[in-house]
């Protein structure tokens, strides 16, 4: 690390005291190794000081449980993501069908007017508004469900 071939030996010796006479002589004459020995000895001393600190560690069981919960949440998100996309696709399809068949439906209704007796024409707006309301409500509910699923999966 200091470019000296003795460095690994110096690091080991500074850490565990396995100095040989030759290595000690070398460290005394090599600036890089002398610095390495000083730094490693200081750090080793620091590690020992920190080891004396008996502050309890966080409980590994809690970390384990948190990881399992997070994993379950991620799996649930993965699973519901497919459902959410299917719901979105359904909404798009319903909207596309409504747009595509909307003008035709209007024409059909106008055509029906000519066939229906005059008395029935009075109820026509009611007849149309029922299915439209159901369609619209379904559309809104599905959109809300899709949003709700997405939010609950993220949180």
């Amino acid at each position, binding site marked *: *690390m200091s470019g000296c071939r003795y460095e690994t030996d110096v690091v080991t010796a500074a850490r565990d005291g396995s*100095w040989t006479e030759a290595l000690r002589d070398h460290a005394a004459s090599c600036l890089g190794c002398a*610095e390495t020995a000083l*730094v490693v000895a200081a750090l080793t001393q620091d590690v020992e000081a920190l080891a004396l600190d008996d502050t309890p560690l*966080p409980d590994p069981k809690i*970390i384990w449980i948190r*990881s399992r919960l997070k994993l379950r949440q991620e799996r649930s998100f993965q699973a519901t993501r497919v459902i959410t996309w299917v719901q979105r696709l359904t909404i798009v399809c319903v909207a596309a069908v409504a747009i595509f068949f909307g003008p035709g439906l209007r024409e059909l209704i106008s055509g029906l007017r000519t066939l229906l007796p005059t008395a029935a024409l009075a109820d026509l707006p009611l007849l149309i508004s029922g299915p439209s309301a159901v369609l619209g409500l379904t559309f809104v509910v599905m959109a809300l469900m899709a949003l709700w699923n997405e939010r609950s999966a993220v949180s």
Partner: protein
Amino acid sequence: MATVASAVPAAHAGLASGVMDEAAFQAFYTLTARRLRAYLIRSLADRSLADDLMQEAYLRLLRSGLKTDDEDHRKAYLFRIATNLIRDHFRRRRPEYEMPPDLPGDLGFQNNFEARTDVARAMNGLATRDRQMLWLAYVEGSSHQEIAKALGLKTASLKSMLSRARHRMADRIRELGIRPLERSES
């Protein structure tokens, strides 16, 4: 230096598939948590933050689904996650990856056990990256490649960076008049 692999039997039941079960995780945690906390404390100079990041590092390790029977590899991976968390922490705090203030007093940790030691004072005078490099190289015994990977540096430039960090640390030690005890073989 004793490796993690030598302390955790490879044939541990929980490691059969390379993914840890709860017992294997607890064994791994017992062996590595104090070392990881020491690394984080020295890198961050903040115990409570170190504890938070330590838990997050283990969580990320478990969620990564790392499949390996090599405990030393797992440990290196854990330290890499912790190093990334430290980097993210400083990036969030400041626009650039800067070092924290020079003295522990500036950080308000002067009463903390971990900031009181002389070596801690010397370490706190260095840039975070310098501290990380020195710790990984000389305490954890990580290879240049592992350190470069953890710190997002080029292996080729690590040698000179480590050399400069060591030089700065040696200067700080001399400035503060620290005389580490010389080890004797036991």
